[in-house]
């Protein structure tokens, strides 16, 4: 098919309007193309020439303004699901990982810890657990057909941002509050730097996912007047 083919033009316009997880987007567009190719073949069997058949298939498919919001809603729902799944893996993973590292000796030697550090550690564990529970609930909501995809995606994003900022921030403050003990830990324990680096990377990954999900959820939808 050439670039002037009505099917190609229609799909290019549809693709231009969509944002979301690239694998799902590609798969949905490929499926739409397959369907349009089938429709063109069916119209050709009924006696239409190639161009008329392609034009009729595109007309029957519906205008991009009418169809794109349906595709975009689905992409937003999938993006929200992936983001919720990431939270569900990262936050319990960080809690379990640091618990294990603590037992393996990746900890400050200035025991007993100050009241501030104990309070921050509790806040971090609680925040992590709350994020995991909220993520699980939101993940379950994505299995409902009638769930408001955009609102769910925004909630997942906000949960991720709050979780990353609270958990990352408390971790940073705890190390600063311990003064030289943090530096001594890094110097003495070979696992400390990879552990801190991995935690920072996961927090950055959560923030990146949250921003991306917000952008996908906020992607413009044609107004009723445009459709």
């Amino acid at each position, binding site marked *: 098919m050439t670039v002037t083919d009505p099917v190609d033009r229609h799909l290019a316009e549809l693709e231009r309007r969509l944002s979301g997880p690239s694998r799902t987007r590609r798969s949905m567009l490929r499926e739409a193309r397959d369907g349009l190719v089938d*429709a063109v073949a069916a119209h050709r069997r009924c006696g239409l020439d190639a161009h008329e058949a392609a034009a009729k298939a595109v007309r029957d498919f519906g205008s991009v303004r009418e169809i794109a919001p349906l595709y975009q809603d689905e992409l937003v729902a999938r993006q929200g699901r992936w983001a919720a799944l990431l939270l569900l893996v990262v936050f319990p993973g960080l809690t379990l990982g640091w618990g294990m590292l603590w037992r393996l000796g990746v900890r400050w030697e200035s025991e007993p810890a100050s009241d501030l550090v104990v309070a921050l550690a509790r806040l971090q564990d609680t925040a992590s657990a709350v994020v995991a529970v909220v993520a699980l609930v939101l993940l379950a909501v994505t299995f409902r057909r009638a769930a408001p995809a955009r609102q769910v995606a925004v909630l997942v994003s906000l949960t991720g941002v709050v979780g990353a900022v609270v958990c990352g921030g408390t971790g940073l403050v705890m190390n600063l509050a311990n003064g030289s003990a943090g530096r001594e830990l890094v110097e003495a324990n070979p696992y400390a730097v990879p552990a801190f680096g991995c935690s920072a990377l996961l927090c950055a990954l959560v923030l990146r996912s949250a921003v991306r999900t917000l952008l996908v959820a906020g992607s413009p939808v044609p107004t009723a007047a445009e459709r």
Partner: protein
Amino acid sequence: MRPDAVRGHLDGLILAVLEDGPRHGYAIIEALQTRSGGALELPTGTVYPALRRLERAALLSGTWSTVGGRERRTYTLTRAGRHALANQRADWSEFSAVVDAVLRPAAGRPAAGMP
């Protein structure tokens, strides 16, 4: 039939045409048109996002497979999908019976209870 009238029932209609076996997207559209006697005037482009929505809800499973020498995305009704279809049928029977009872011309109705 106007597309707006169909849209709210599209999920149930799709589940119904997949009841007798897996189909790819265009075959589902053809089955909808055949079973409705050509009365459904839904834009075909609305069916594909609906299939993904049903798949996300675990009522359908979708996989890319080779059909007739071409790679197609084929959908199969899951156990949850069969259950949802049964519920949809029951809800529709109840709803249509109620609407039918109200819309039926007075001559066809049983005598009212007023003395």
